[in-house]
């Protein structure tokens, strides 16, 4: 009998349970993506998840680690994340490349689960955005919005996924549209006010909320994401600190500037529902490995993400800043963890007894 220390009872929580809870929480969002992009979404999801698992398996074999680790759910989750942050327009080879990159360089290169500095899916997504800007900023028109129905059936989706738009006799321009964020951004540069731009776009808050806007696969429906996110919070799989502080910060910043000049600065509700913010706030920023451990650290992290998101969206080159913001904050997570520690029982703040 080896030496075993107390406690001799355990909550039953495990990495697997945590990871699969998150996967389950993402199922509504994945279903919405299928509703929006039909078979194309199915192909993208399966390719990303499948390739992530495959890469993970190969790496584990090569590094002579226990291949049972494959089933801890982290690779599958990375794959799912990845699919949800990709636009529906990407071809198969980008999906494959992204999955391999996420697992190999985003995670295993750092030493595997628990040691990665960045959220692997986000890292891959940022790299893709820099490398293939055309594919990564073309947003297909969702199924319900027009005459594109035949593009999303099984065979057309398959051809499009593997061979590109020519195979389905379409041009990029005919099948893509701008996201609300992108549209507003472009219009603003041409001197149109926010209000007018939104009107031109026929933007509706309700649509954005229940999920009928163009965007990455998982960005479609705020409602579906919120359902999953709140379920995770109730289960204590993720804590409230990051989502709440993140969303609040964006809302407060957007609110203040919108009050100052509503023509140039979009309203807070628009910011909250647009783009990948909710996906990032509930699922990406809360990735345990790359976010701080302590409660206060998490709040600082969330506020930082919020500020950066708003700043990048408003002043940056790219219309969407949520993912960049999270990646940037990931970089300083170790610093936050070092400097921001909870107050220890029996000590005053700043560590004297």
């Amino acid at each position, binding site marked *: *009998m080896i*030496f*075993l*220390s*107390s*406690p*001799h*009872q*355990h*909550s*039953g*929580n*495990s*990495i697997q*349970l*945590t990871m699969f809870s998150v996967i389950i929480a993402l199922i509504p969002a994945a279903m919405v993506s299928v509703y929006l992009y039909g078979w194309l979404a199915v192909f993208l999801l399966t390719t990303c998840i499948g390739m992530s698992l495959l890469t993970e398996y190969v790496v584990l074999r090569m590094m002579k680690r226990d291949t049972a680790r494959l089933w*801890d759910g*982290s690779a599958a989750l990375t794959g799912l994340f990845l699919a949800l942050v990709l636009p529906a327009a990407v071809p198969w080879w980008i999906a494959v490349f992204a999955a391999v990159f996420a697992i190999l360089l985003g995670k295993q290169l750092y030493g*595997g*689960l*628990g*040691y990665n500095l960045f959220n692997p899916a986000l890292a891959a997504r940022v790299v893709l955005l820099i490398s293939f800007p055309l594919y990564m900023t073309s947003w297909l028109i969702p199924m319900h919005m027009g005459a594109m129905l035949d593009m999303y059936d099984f065979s057309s989706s398959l051809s499009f996924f593997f061979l590109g738009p020519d195979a389905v006799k379409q041009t990029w321009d005919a099948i893509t549209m701008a996201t609300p964020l992108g549209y507003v951004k472009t219009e603003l540069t041409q001197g149109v006010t926010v209000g007018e731009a939104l009107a031109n776009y026929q933007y509706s808050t309700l649509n954005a909320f229940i999920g009928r806007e163009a965007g990455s696969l998982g960005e479609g429906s705020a409602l579906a994401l919120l359902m999953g996110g*709140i379920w995770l*919070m*109730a*289960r*204590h799989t993720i*804590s*409230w600190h990051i989502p709440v502080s993140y969303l609040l910060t964006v809302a407060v910043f957007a609110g203040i500037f919108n009050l100052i000049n509503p023509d140039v600065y979009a309203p807070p509700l628009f910011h909250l529902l647009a783009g990948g913010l909710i996906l990032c706030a509930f699922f990406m920023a809360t990735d*345990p*490995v*790359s*976010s*701080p*451990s*302590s*409660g206060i650290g*998490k709040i600082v992290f969330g506020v930082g993400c919020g500020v950066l998101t708003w700043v990048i969206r408003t002043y940056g080159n790219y219309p969407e800043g949520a993912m960049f913001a999270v990646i940037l904050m990931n970089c300083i997570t170790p610093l936050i*963890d070092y400097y921001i*520690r*909870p*107050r*220890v*029982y*029996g*000590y005053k703040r700043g560590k004297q*007894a």
Partner: protein
Amino acid sequence: MFKLFDMLKGLGEQLHLKPQHSFTGGVHPQEMKKTAGLPSMTCPLPKQIILPMKQHIGDACEPMVKVGDYVLRGQQIAKSQGYLSVPVHASTSGTVTKIEDHVIAHPSGLGLPCIFIEPDGKDEADESLYPLPNYRSIDPVELRERVRSAGLAGLGGAAFPTFIKLVLDQQYKIETVVLNGIECEPWLTNDHQLMLEKAHEIVTGMDILMHMVDSNQGIIAIEDNKMDTVDVMQRTLVDMGLDASIRIEVLPTKYPQGGEKQLIQVLTGKEVPAGRLPIHIGILSQNVGTTKAIYDAVCLGEALTERMITVSGDALPQPTNMRVRLGTPVAWLLEQCGLSDADGIKVLHGGPMMGDILTDMRIPVVKASNGILAMRVVTLMLAHHQEDPCIRCGDCGDVCPAGLMPNLLAMHCKEEQFEKAEDYNLFDCIECGACSYVCPSHIPLVHYFRFGKGQVAQIRREKSFAEESRQRSEIRDARIAQELA
């Protein structure tokens, strides 16, 4: 919906919106209190009583008897050495058969000198301690000496000599006497049962304490999973006319609320400053078992020779609470509860959250033994699952009642960076186990902390020995140089 409500409540707690105090963190382990409400039984005398010379935190005792001596129940057989120590008494009458090392309840599985007594079955009592029923008219100094000489050490599990806590000088005036009836460890119900069966004795013991430290405010703290005891205690208080000075606080169940520091925080909102004791903020807290023993020592003139123990566990056919003589071997105890075959079974000493695995079934119960749990190895192995890498989820920090960052602390201990571990407040960890309990990666965090603490102590010992050796060698070099000159 409740979950959501809980969450909002947690949010409120974090923002300090909650009117009642609480301690940070905490977990809700499965309670498994199978023996709750079962009447206690008396354990028959074993064939051999083994009394370790150290059953408390502090210095070991020195035997006062020889092999062959006849001793009586309650007779002092070992005297304390040093201040932080309490004497040991024979727990039944009989003959001393040997005095030698024997394994005791300690995770190392190492032994200590023990006195072996073969009971003669008569159980004759020693009369040298006379009863002091009119304790209110007796000088606290004398009562304190009685508490010491009766061998009292905390029966809650830590076994800190009781008399040390009873400071009588006016420098630290004790305002509040707290009776700790929390019993937050899963499985254990011995305090619960004691409160049901010995409410009068316990309340009297508390009155003795309040007389000694001249306090007129008493709090009995009970968790809301033991509402039956609340009724009994309240009735007893009213019967004895003490309900004006002693009040009962019912607290929501949460582990480790029974930790002294956590309980004080919950009851008063004050924290015991680091490196200080509860008396420094005017609080004396005692476990219910200890309080009952104080009653026995003062009002009945009985030394500590017996205690209530929960004998339970998922491998035990008839779990129960037992009044057991100190020194009774664990194997005997389990036999009384119907355990015949110990294959595939490990025995825990104490509760599952803070207790240790016993290395040997012949180990005797001591003053600190609050529970003996016979657990199936398969059940234990669920908790001691293979360790996965830390995913930095922070759950461990969220539940830590001491406000530490267990993941980083454990990492530093594992890498043997003990200075950093100390910087992360290694020594403020109370080893409650809440962090290991929730860790999704099954990292034995507490194990790393214990390793770290032990290593730091070891390094300090080595350093001071090296320093002494260096001085000795320098003296020698100087002497040789002189001889040569």
